[in-house]
């Protein structure tokens, strides 16, 4: 058990170092920091002085080590555009993205699992066919189109929900939240659905497939034969056994929810890190771009790690180390 955890942690660190390397290469080579800092009137001497000061003449591995060391202290330099330290800028924007991602993930899991179970239990019913065919929309339409369609329907035509922004937010000092106001909650609805629709359909189809698979197993037949109630069979015998793949997918998708929030945030003018990143690309704001890359890499790694550790909790066989060779 401990060995598995340690091995996982080591892998996570390796991946993060690699992401940091790419992020560092972008920072160092895509935009020449000296050019961006000095402007075109700078003299050769000024350049040399700044290169020395920034340590650009050190061996490349030393520069990389410095970059990693500074990143560990959340020091990514100043944004060229926002004129704020990048870490501060990201900290300002992160609550918006995390609230959006979490809301849409909850939406996706709840509706995905419920509809997945429903369609597995009631095979062939009208409702099932309806759910299954409309779920195709979620898989096949691109995110920005879904967003624009929702805006058109619910904001422009029906006038029910706001088309952009976060609404009123409450500042808690270290976190701004839209969960505590009506307009904040209303503003969350459309972006969350837009962002979570794909995940929801994915989870639904996965749940359904797993459920159908499990329901064919002998022990379920036995439980039914023993006269247990349907509810007990479905929710106490079948459901726990489909959780592992569902948790895996949900966890992995949470990473992409954060990463792909870029598109949803642009459509809804959602003031999160995704929008920050898009603006950084427009302005060639390299410090923000490389910090964002590192952040998303970090989110993916942490989420994968947590998913792996959750396996250990849920599956007793893994916990006992019986399947170690296969892991």
């Amino acid at each position, binding site marked *: 058990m401990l060995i598995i955890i340690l091995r996982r942690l080591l892998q996570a660190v390796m991946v993060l170092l690699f992401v940091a390397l790419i992020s560092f290469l972008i920072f160092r080579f895509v935009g020449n920091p000296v050019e961006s800092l000095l402007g075109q009137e700078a003299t050769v001497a000024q350049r040399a002085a700044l290169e020395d000061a920034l340590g650009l003449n050190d061996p490349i591995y030393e520069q990389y080590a410095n970059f990693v060391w500074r990143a560990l202290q959340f020091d990514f330099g100043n944004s060229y555009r926002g*004129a704020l330290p990048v870490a501060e800028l990201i900290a300002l924007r992160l609550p918006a993205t995390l609230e959006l991602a979490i809301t849409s993930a909850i939406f996706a899991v709840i509706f995905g699992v419920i509809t997945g179970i429903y369609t597995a239990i009631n095979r062939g019913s009208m409702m099932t066919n309806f759910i299954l065919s409309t779920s195709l929309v979620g898989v096949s339409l691109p995110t920005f189109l879904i967003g624009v369609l929702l805006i058109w329907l619910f904001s422009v035509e029906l006038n029910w929900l706001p088309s952009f*922004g976060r609404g009123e937010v409450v500042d808690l000092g270290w976190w701004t939240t839209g969960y505590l106001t009506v307009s904040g909650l209303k503003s969350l609805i459309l972006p969350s659905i837009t962002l979570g629709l794909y995940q929801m359909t994915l989870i639904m189809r996965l749940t359904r497939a797993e459920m159908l698979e499990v329901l064919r197993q002998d022990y379920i037949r036995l439980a039914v034969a023993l006269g247990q109630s349907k509810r007990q069979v479905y929710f106490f015998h079948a459901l726990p056994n489909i959780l592992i793949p569902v948790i895996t997918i949900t966890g992995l998708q949470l990473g992409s929810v954060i990463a792909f929030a870029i598109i949803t945030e642009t459509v809804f003018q959602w003031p999160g890190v995704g929008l920050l990143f898009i603006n950084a690309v427009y302005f060639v704001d390299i410090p923000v771009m490389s910090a964002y890359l590192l952040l998303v890499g970090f989110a993916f790694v942490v989420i994968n790690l947590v998913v792996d550790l959750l396996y250990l909790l849920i599956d007793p066989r893994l916990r006992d180390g019986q399947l170690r060779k296969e892991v």
Partner: protein
Amino acid sequence: MLKHLLVSAAILSVSLTSASAETIRWARAGDSITMDPHAQNEGPTHTLSHQIYDSLLQRDMAGSIIPSLATEWTALPNNPSVWRFKLRQGVTFHDGAKFDSEDVVFSLNRAKADGSEMKELLSSVKEVRAVDAYTVDIETNGANPLLVNNLTNMFIMDKGWSESNNVMTPHDVAKGETNFATMNTNGTGAFMLVSRAVDEKTILKANPNYWGKDIYPNQVTEIIYTPIQSSATRVAALLSGEVDLIQDVPVQDLGRVESSSGLKLATAAQNRVIFLGVDTANGPTADLRVRQAMNIAINRDSIKKVVMRGQSDPTGVIMPPFVNGWTEDLNKYPKYDVKMAKDLMAQAGYSNGFDIVLNCPNDRYVNDEAICQAVVGMMAQIGINVTLDAKPKAQHFPIAKGGESDFYMLGWGVPTFDSHYIFNFLVHTQTENRGSWNPTGYSNADVDAMIVSLESETDLAKRDATIAKIWAEVQKAQMYLPIHNQVLNWGMRDNIEFDVQPEDQPHFQFLKFK
């Protein structure tokens, strides 16, 4: 009786509050970069600064210069290199501090300091002097008849406030610097900053002690400004009534906004001309006949009709119509004539055409990439095989400016409303201080000398004659192929009366409600 009085008092107070609390919710594509009024020379940044800060003089909603913090200005009759400004009296900053000549001297010097992006506009200024508390002299190196044109975005800050908050110089945005003035303001303008979240929401409220209260309508009591980047969302926000005014209406949605009840569209020519630059030094385009052929192979009418959906003014000169030096004759564009263009190509020895790359931005001007695509097709008709290379502006501008491109798109606005601004950047030979946006290789010593002479020529008739002469040379050389002037569209609730400002700068003290 008493009851009656109370009721009518209540009614009166209700009608009063509804008339006095007029909030305008306003959206455009981009946010201001900084609240420090001298740190950036950029449209959306100036727009927000203009609500909060005043300049000595400003452009009104029609684009003409009107008094602001200065009430009168004139070049001294005995010394044309000194401009004297009489300042408005009784003006206070938002924090209550008095405005006087000391603040003007301080602010103009601050705008000339390192880190300021406004300093080029003041490059001719030698010294700014306070004559008395409400008189300021600006001395230039040699006479500068157009100095006032450069002052319309030169905002005045309070010296005392700047000292106590340690913002004596602008912060250098490119170096990632920041200072107190990045997020805090203290101006004399019609609105005061209440709160600001970058890229999210900025709230301004009317300044109760505004000096212009009796001069302008001043009906807006609160401004809520939200940048919305996605154009579809911006239009949706207007259609759904979440915002009252949007700038940057995408051309494909103009009809939608216009036909919606409760909304209207205001349109005006913009101070921005779109054109293509051509390399005159190397390659096939070095031959004048090739450039002439390319010029008449561009079908400007069909670009207007198909690409711009009618929202452009085709032109034959790289100068918007507001600019001093503009004439109907220059503006006339050549007839679209493929046959003659082919003849010219044959005369130049390129009857089989040639290959060229067209560099184009895809996020800067209205339908920029689509215009370039249209040009590719038009050039193909005369045998020129154009490869389109469309990039975001951050990548495009270094290419266009650096002379790496033989064929590129550029748009040009003229904040000084004078031809000299165009010549200085686009026509003068590329040198250290001038011609920075002229990578075409065009270089004419006589023209260069004439351009420099404009800066100190005080005889305006003579100056205008020189401008006309330079334009004649530019039109002859055809290193630029003009396409059109952009048209500005603002969408708004139909109870708003607001003219579209040619610099795309709404000044909300002018806004009226019906």
